[in-house]
């Protein structure tokens, strides 16, 4: 709306340009990227993500065939929230959400996202990772149009998200926020029902179908027992599941999760990731998660997108992107990534303080 007004180049920015690096400069300073040279297979472009899709198919297939280490995953977790009208499975395999040349600066002129181009395909779980300040959350904000890009576009089903009326966008794309608070004693069911807002008229009357979707979302996140309880009386983990249920009640083909496991314990986090897997594999949803939990990502992400300093560092199937060189480059952490038979995915061990003793924390071990 009001981009391009006060803080932008014309004003104070003009003066700063002398000292601050120009848009081109970060490449010189921050990215002599030994990595990006070697990442010809997965260059920081949508093309790379899409190009390596075949590899993912292969990897996914073999993972399916691997012994099921998470029986709770496809097996015992209930089916996703009852069949939402909105979720489109017929989108083929092309990206249903993509960004082209996306850039964003805060009012102070600091560029938080630079020229990002990416495509996200349905039926897959993408994890967006990077150190604090890498611009991950800003990317989610831009994807969900909580912020308007400075330049570039966000395409939702091929159409610029700026052209969507708000309610229509809310039927295509849902987002579970990282921070939330419940100020009034709505019940769990009432909060989840609010997710139906984009489908309802002015007075918010729920049809039978809306009620079914709400109940489905409540069941899907195991909130049945709490459905009539006031949300103000829930624990942090329960409240987070309520927020997720509300997001699922929106019944969108695209779901953005911002630190969804931040206040969950290990068992709850695994449970949640199992359910996300149901959404992506069984229902064809696209899920994009921002998380700091690389261990979970290593096991559950179909694809990973690594960012640093607002730039894309690498994107592609988890197996192709998640490796120790990348972790060293992005997080400056000395880590070892290996195939882990126990979790059925990758596992990461970090070396601390040069002691030489790696603290292995494969995602699978937490609940054992």
């Amino acid at each position, binding site marked *: 709306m009001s981009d391009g007004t006060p803080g932008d180049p014309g004003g104070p920015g003009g003066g700063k340009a002398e000292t601050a690096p120009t848009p081109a400069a970060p490449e010189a300073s921050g990215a002599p990227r030994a990595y990006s040279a070697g990442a010809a297979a997965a260059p920081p472009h949508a093309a790379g993500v899409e190009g390596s899709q075949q590899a993912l198919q292969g990897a996914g297939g073999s993972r399916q065939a691997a012994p099921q280490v998470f029986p709770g995953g496809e097996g015992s977790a209930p089916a996703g929230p009852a069949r939402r009208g909105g979720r489109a499975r017929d989108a083929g395999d092309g990206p249903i959400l993509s960004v082209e040349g996306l850039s964003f600066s805060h009012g102070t002129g600091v560029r938080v996202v630079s020229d990002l181009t990416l495509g996200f395909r349905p039926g897959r779980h993408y994890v967006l990772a990077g150190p604090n300040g890498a611009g991950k959350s800003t990317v989610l904000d831009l994807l969900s149009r909580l912020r308007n890009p400075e330049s570039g576009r966000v395409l939702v089903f091929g159409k610029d998200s700026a052209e969507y009326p708000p309610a229509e966008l809310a039927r295509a794309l849902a*987002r579970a926020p990282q921070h939330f608070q419940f100020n009034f004693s709505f019940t769990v069911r009432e909060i989840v029902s609010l997710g139906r807002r984009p489908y309802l008229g002015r007075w918010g009357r729920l049809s039978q179908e809306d009620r079914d979707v709400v109940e489905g979302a409540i069941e899907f996140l195991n909130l049945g027992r709490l459905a009539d309880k006031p949300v103000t009386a829930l624990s942090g983990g329960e409240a987070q599941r309520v927020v997720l249920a509300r997001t699922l009640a929106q019944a969108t083909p695209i779901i953005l999760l911002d630190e969804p496991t931040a206040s969950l314990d290990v068992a709850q986090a695994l449970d949640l990731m199992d359910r996300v897997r149901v959404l992506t594999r069984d229902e064809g949803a696209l899920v994009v998660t921002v998380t700091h939990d690389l261990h979970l990502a290593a096991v559950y992400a179909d694809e990973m997108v690594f960012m640093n300093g607002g730039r894309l560092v690498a994107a592609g199937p988890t197996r192709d992107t998640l490796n120790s060189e990348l972790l060293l480059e992005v997080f400056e952490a000395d880590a070892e990534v290996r195939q882990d038979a126990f979790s059925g995915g990758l596992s990461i061990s970090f070396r601390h303080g040069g002691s030489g003793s790696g603290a292995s924390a494969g995602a699978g071990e937490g609940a054992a």
Partner: protein
Amino acid sequence: MSDTTAREAALPASRPSGRRERAADGVAARRMSPWLLAAVLGAGIVAVILVSLKSGYMPFSPSEIWDILYFKILSIPRLRFLTLLGAPDAELDPSRVLVLWDVRLPRLVTSLIAGAALGLSGAVFQGILLNPLADPYTLGVSSGAAFGASVVIVCSILFPAAAFLTNPLVAAGGAFAASAATLFVVMLLAADREGRLPPPNLILAGVIMSAILSAAISFIKYLAGDQVSSIIFWLLGSFQARTWTEAGIVAAFFVPALSVVLPSAVDLNIMTLGVRSAETLGVNTGRVRLKLLVASSFAASASVAVAGIIGFVGLIVPHLVRLLTGPDHRSLLPLSTLGGALLLAAADTAVRAFLPGEIPVGVLTALLAGPAFLVIFRRKMKDLVHV
């Protein structure tokens, strides 16, 4: 295999995590049906209307009330056709007609509408500011109105030649203008760079403006010298000697506010989730918030302008309603409207007809609602303990 079985046992489909999950078990939301509460409040309002018209220095019997109302209604040209239902009693005493129709009824109607406006805007403010302690005066509406009225009153004291200043409607006009100006300044102060109005900014800006205006009012009181009591009495809030004009003024702001606010009930529900969640659910929070703040502030300003500052109605009524029927604004807004009307009309009837003296109604509402609020607050604190 044994590994898998062990894990399966550790990861049941419902994965209850023990202690913390059970925390909520004891606190199922027990709620009253909104329709039942609406019926109770409606019956209460009817009862207050009857008792209020009946009681006072000059008592009326129900049949006399009926005769007078019928007579007056038939004297409205458009409603003449109702004469078909029977001719009005011609034996009415004009002075009694005057007392009921031109003194008691407008006062009652003004208190009903002012109470409704305060209850409604209190509910809106609590919802928008995400703060159950907010009330219609949070944004400085009352301080602004008090300042405006004080200026008019002190001018009428300092310049006795300007007789028009003693007209209570001039004080009301001054109060309304000043409170609208205050609202504008508070919003200007609270707006962030993107033109949004974040609740914490609004509350802070309101507190700052109130503090400044209070200081100004103190200065005006000092100027008023030994006639300061006329300012103090205005500030305490009263419906004494209110006419149909005052009733019309509050109604003129309350009815549009109601028609703006009620259809936004669902958006208000969504906005309690926070701005970011609301935006991703397709609600234009900036526009909705501005619309609701302006509408409900104007309704509150109008009620302060005609009745002075009546505290606690806008705070406690939405609170009680939420406690009884839950926080859904689709029921909260209309029920707070009814509740505010009932509370204020009952309080005004009590001070007029039943309590000695005619203490200002604002004093009574504060005396009643303050302790009630304390009880609610303690109960809430106890609830919070076992979260």
